[in-house]
């Protein structure tokens, strides 16, 4: 028996979320007095996993799985779970993991709980805390099936180093018809994504028009941050839909969220409030976002942001 964790990679490189779910799987394995088995698919740098408590790696290399395919990946994980005799399977909250998790749940006849934010408080029955109502509440849930799948919220647990004597084994799952073919992937490879970013710089209607986003991108660049926006900004076509964050857009659970010219409507706040530190820059001292923020600057983005960029550059140069 082992705790199975799917450690995701992007273009052969393990993602930070992979190290986080490995750390989390190790914490559960400690509670259950068992080991951690990681599954890596077409990843090259799996050595890193020995720093995060992984005892065994099942290494899958497959040209069929070169593009992500939820069914194929779920098939592979099912077979890995059976091989490791796993009773608990840990996944991240990436778009891909959330895509495959329900399929895996049916494959393994396992109960699945998503958006989990802590280590289980009890192991029998397995009891977890998850976010619900778009971060407006937490739900305590029990999973009572034999095999259990936990989807961990991004940045909820963090990275915890534990060194391990890791063994690696090549694993070749049998794949059935994949059903879905990827024709093309449109992705800016040089930009950090909202899901993976430690810092997100987000701007709203206060920016007045798409032509003013240069300073937002520059600020994001200086901080190594991803860019995001409020819903009306994407509805107006000022920014792509993929940047829309909030209750009906992407969730943000980052370390630092900087909101510029965003009023802080309830639907916006719900989707971003899982971020640890929130900074608000807004001309209106009455903007509701200040009530949900850790740090605030009452001021005009058109003067504050260029100055902040200059000062941050100087700070970074130190």
């Amino acid at each position, binding site marked *: 028996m082992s705790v199975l964790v799917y450690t995701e990679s992007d273009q052969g490189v393990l993602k930070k979320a992979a190290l986080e779910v490995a750390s989390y799987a190790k914490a559960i394995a400690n509670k259950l007095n068992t080991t951690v088995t990681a599954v890596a698919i077409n990843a090259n740098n799996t050595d890193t996993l020995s720093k995060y408590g992984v005892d065994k790696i099942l290494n899958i290399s497959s040209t069929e799985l070169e593009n*992500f395919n*939820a*069914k194929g990946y779920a098939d592979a994980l099912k077979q890995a779970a059976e091989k490791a005799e796993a009773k608990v399977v840990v996944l991240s909250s*990436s*778009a891909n993991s959330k*895509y495959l998790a*329900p*399929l895996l*749940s*049916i*494959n393994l006849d396992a*109960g*699945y*709980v*998503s*958006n989990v934010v802590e280590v289980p408080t009890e192991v029998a029955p397995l009891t977890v*805390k998850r976010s*619900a*109502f*778009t971060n*407006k*509440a*937490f739900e305590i*849930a029990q999973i*009572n*099936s034999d095999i259990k799948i936990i989807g961990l919220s991004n940045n909820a647990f963090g990275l915890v180093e534990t060194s391990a004597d890791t063994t690696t084994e090549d694993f070749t799952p049998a794949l059935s018809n994949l059903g*879905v*073919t*990827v*024709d*093309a992937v*449109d992705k*800016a490879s040089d*930009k*950090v994504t909202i*899901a*993976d970013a430690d*810092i997100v710089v987000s701007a709203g209607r206060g920016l007045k028009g798409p032509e003013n986003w240069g300073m937002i991108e520059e600020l994001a660049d200086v901080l190594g941050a991803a860019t995001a926006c409020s819903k009306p900004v994407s*509805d107006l076509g000022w920014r792509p*839909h*993929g940047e829309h964050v909030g*209750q*009906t857009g992407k969730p943000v659970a980052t*370390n*630092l969220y900087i909101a510029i010219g965003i009023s802080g409507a*309830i*639907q916006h706040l719900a989707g971003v*409030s899982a971020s640890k530190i929130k900074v608000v820059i807004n001309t209106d001292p009455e903007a509701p976002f200040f009530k*949900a923020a*850790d*740090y*605030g*600057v*009452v*001021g005009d983005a058109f003067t504050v942001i260029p*100055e*902040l960029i200059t*000062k*941050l550059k100087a*700070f970074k140069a130190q």
Partner: protein
Amino acid sequence: MNILVCISHVPDTTSKINFTDNDTTFDTNGVQFVINPNDEFGLTRAMWFKEKQGAKVTVINVGGAETEPTLRKALAIGADAAIRINTAATDGLTVAKQIANVIKNDNYDLIISGRESIDYNGGMVPGMIAALIDANFVNTCTSLEIDGTQAKATREIDGGIERITTSLPLVIGGQKGLVEESDLKIPNMRGIMMARKKPLQVVEPIESSAKSNSIKFEKPAAKGAVTLVDANNLDELINLLHNEAKAI
């Protein structure tokens, strides 16, 4: 084409979230319920297929009688028929199993669900349905075209989009992008009148046991007061973010 649209009955996005019965039950007092926003995009896309390519659109919900006004609203928007499976939607798996059972009896080509509901945020119903009926599945689907039995879709991924080819029968977990916000349909008077005459079938549930259950709810801890920094003293902001928050 025979299309089934899964409709989740959820509290309006501005609702205050409170709990009763010793924090075990969502307090519906004073809460207004709406069609789950992700499902609304899917329903509007289904209406587009109906108008442009010919389709029968059925909407389905798993829930008690209190969800019927939400199904009627979907009928007023233009769906042809509605089904309510008469049982509490206790967890995602139960909902998926009940809906999959209806699909097995009725043969749908395309099943449109939202990628997640905004109340419990489980994000599992569409994928579970697909696995239960062995159909193809596209999650976080932001566009969909159907030509015969072939489908072209785009999917939102972290940091971009993926262009996909697949075939019917197909389940999608939909979201904004399937149609634009401005194309969302609002029921008009005629639609509301017609909806009253459209069939709303109540189906009894099949036996199914949940694999997870909800024990209790908690509200997040209250937030401390904001630290305001003068716009003329941004060095202080950098200092706080670096030394106090350790965020940069």
